[in-house]
């Protein structure tokens, strides 16, 4: 369906992907959209590759995004960004956390972590790279890296700031709200200052 927006959030079990997906979905609801999301629980959460799908529009049927069906790829880890690139439609946007988490085969020396992730992605899609861990630390807690990234995504989505503020209040526990507000604002600000660019090969 043409009028449905797809966001694929990809990363490693334990990175806070599910919360980011929840916030995006909540904003879409508050923005008056129909929404479906899909998550992975269970085995893969033990440090494996995980993805959350978020789709919104006037009417949504499938909760999952097919290859070529995502408008945005929000990648919490570089290798996972590369792995899930096929989900993007031509011209889709990548927001990439500049973080490397080496998978076990790489730690064991049985596989090599690709060296040129940013170049590979940048050559094919508009790309915004954010060092979310550093930014989150600047906001007071590295655990808000997920919300920094979400803030950046929010800048590219058609919902007003007030909607995001309300989504944060609905989803984040009160005692972490201020912290997450700061993280969100930081991500939003970074995205506003950098329009995505198409890298030359």
């Amino acid at each position, binding site marked *: *369906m043409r009028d449905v927006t797809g966001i694929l959030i990809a990363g*490693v*079990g334990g990175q806070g992907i599910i919360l980011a997906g929840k916030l995006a*979905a*909540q904003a879409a*609801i508050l923005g008056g959209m*129909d*929404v*479906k*999301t*899909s*998550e*992975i*629980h*269970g*085995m*893969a*959460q*033990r*440090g*494996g*590759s995980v993805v959350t799908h978020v789709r919104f529009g006037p009417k*949504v*049927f*499938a*909760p*999952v995004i*097919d*290859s*070529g*069906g995502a408008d945005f790829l929000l990648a919490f880890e570089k*290798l*996972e960004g*590369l*792995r899930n*690139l*096929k989900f993007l439609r031509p011209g889709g946007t990548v927001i990439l956390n500049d973080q490397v988490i*080496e*998978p*076990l*085969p*790489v*730690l*064991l*020396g*049985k*596989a*090599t*972590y*690709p060296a040129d992730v940013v170049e590979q992605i940048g050559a094919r899609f508009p790309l915004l790279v954010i060092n979310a861990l550093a930014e989150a630390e600047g906001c007071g807690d590295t655990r808000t890296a997920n919300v920094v990234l979400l803030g950046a995504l929010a800048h590219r989505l058609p919902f007003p700031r007030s909607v995001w503020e309300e989504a944060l209040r609905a989803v984040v526990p009160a005692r972490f709200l201020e912290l997450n507000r700061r993280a969100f604002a930081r991500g939003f600000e970074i995205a506003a200052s950098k329009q995505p660019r198409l890298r030359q090969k």
Partner: protein
Amino acid sequence: MKLLSGNEAIARGAWEAGVKVATAYPGTPSTEILENIARHYPEIYVEWAPNEKVALEVGIGASLGGARTLVVMKHVGVNVAADPLVTLAYTGVNAGLVLVSADDPGMHSSQNEQDNRFYARFAQIPLFEPADSREAKDFLRIAFEVSEAFDIPVMLRTSTRVAHSKSLVREEEPVTPLKRPYQKDFAKYVMVPANARNRHRALEDRREKLRALAEQTPVNRVDEGDRRVGIITSGISYCYVKEVFPWASVLKLGLSHPFPAGLVRTFAGRVENLFVVEELEPFLEEQVAAAGIAVRGKDLIPRTGELTPAVIARALQQDPSVAAVAREHGTAFPTEPEDQPLPLRPPVLCPGCPHRGLFYVLNKLKLNVMGDIGCYTLGGLPPLSAMDTCICMGAGVGMAHGMAKADPESAAKTVAVIGDSTFVHSGITGLIDIVYNRGVSTVIIADNRTTAMTGHQDHPGTGWTARREPTRALDFVKLARAIGVSRVSVVDPADLAATRRAISRALKAPAPAVVVASRPCVLLARPAPNPVPTDPGACKGCKLCLGLGCPALSLPDKRIEINPHLCVGCGLCTQVCRHGAIGKAGGSDA
């Protein structure tokens, strides 16, 4: 409207339907149903049963006792509960009883992808297949009404993409079901042959009445569309069909068993080309074909793995009539891009996981390891590579015994490894068998004090109920002794030398032995990072420590490096290193 997962919607639906008792054994993708009931609906009694058979039996008792009852399990759990289920269809219920079977097409977190719709047909009970969260909640309420109106247990079958997908749900007020006090009824509830024969005939009557219901219920409905392509579908597949072919005529079956043959025949008569789109087995398709109706389905659509909109599009496109009509409607058929070869990221045991030390020792001892299911199954992956088998919960115990009987010499180098929750689920009877039948096998209980794999549920060994009330904890040592195992030891798997000694000693004796490898799951305590100190100068690059498969540890440039954010200081690598390159973490007890 609220965004709820299928599981959250079922929890809500249970409360709205006036459910009073909910029982379950955890299993992805079903687990959050009971967790959500425990968290949000104090009016409902909840319990984690030791396994699915007990969960259903408790549920049957609750139904007879007058409570609307929800029983929840993953697909393979129904195998365990199948014995009471099939006979329960004969006796029927008192207050409504709904069994949720959460299937896992694609095996995101399961050992098989069996299609449990066949269980509904096998037991001859009604089957509801919701497509999203709203339907999950709505169908559950209808399922309770059907259960009581037709005196029969009902199956609500979800799949991973229904259970773990979120969609908008309208919350409603709860109903108050009629009071149904227990009434003795020998002919209905005591399934001796004379009574069971009558009840089997009664089941046939109920089936015919249920078939009539399936023919006219609004949950079986037609989405009118282009009559050149007609698609029969159910569950999540409906969402995918609507995504790819929004223009097609669709017969959506929400109550898919008993099979509404009349409805299907009418639909088939109105469309030019008929297809069935369903995940896994040709459950509906075979019944359409058996009714003498020309249909295509599994000759086009994969029978294994999950469907997606694109998979369905590519499959049906092979049919020329679909391809032609789809072209008119401007339907796109995307091709699947090639996967770029990239390093895989398999799940791994967490840093500090108590299972790591156990499997490191098993690897070093070069044993045959009859394994089981849980987080510890990851001990079968390289580099630990210390699990030979994984069939179903509890299987390893019986298998170790069987292997020893086949080849007595092998007993000294074969162990069963089983998690604490799994041992309670179905390992105990296997252990009794070893003792009873003069076996000599060694059973290792990987006791991390929780059901870790499915998200840390309590179980009879933890001392806590599903609502975190304190209760009596099952004592594995006393239990093993009571069963008749004389050699029982407890060891801390974080102490590699002691673990090795305990297992070697257990294997040496020609008698049944139990080793309880006891240390709480590291995620229960959520320790802050506490990295072990290293001396890269002393590191010889021998890679011995890599054998632990710890994600906090690597040897870039052939020198030890500890990830300070991940390491919790468990000290296994300190014990493994022969060159003094890894020290002990401050404040650690290792």
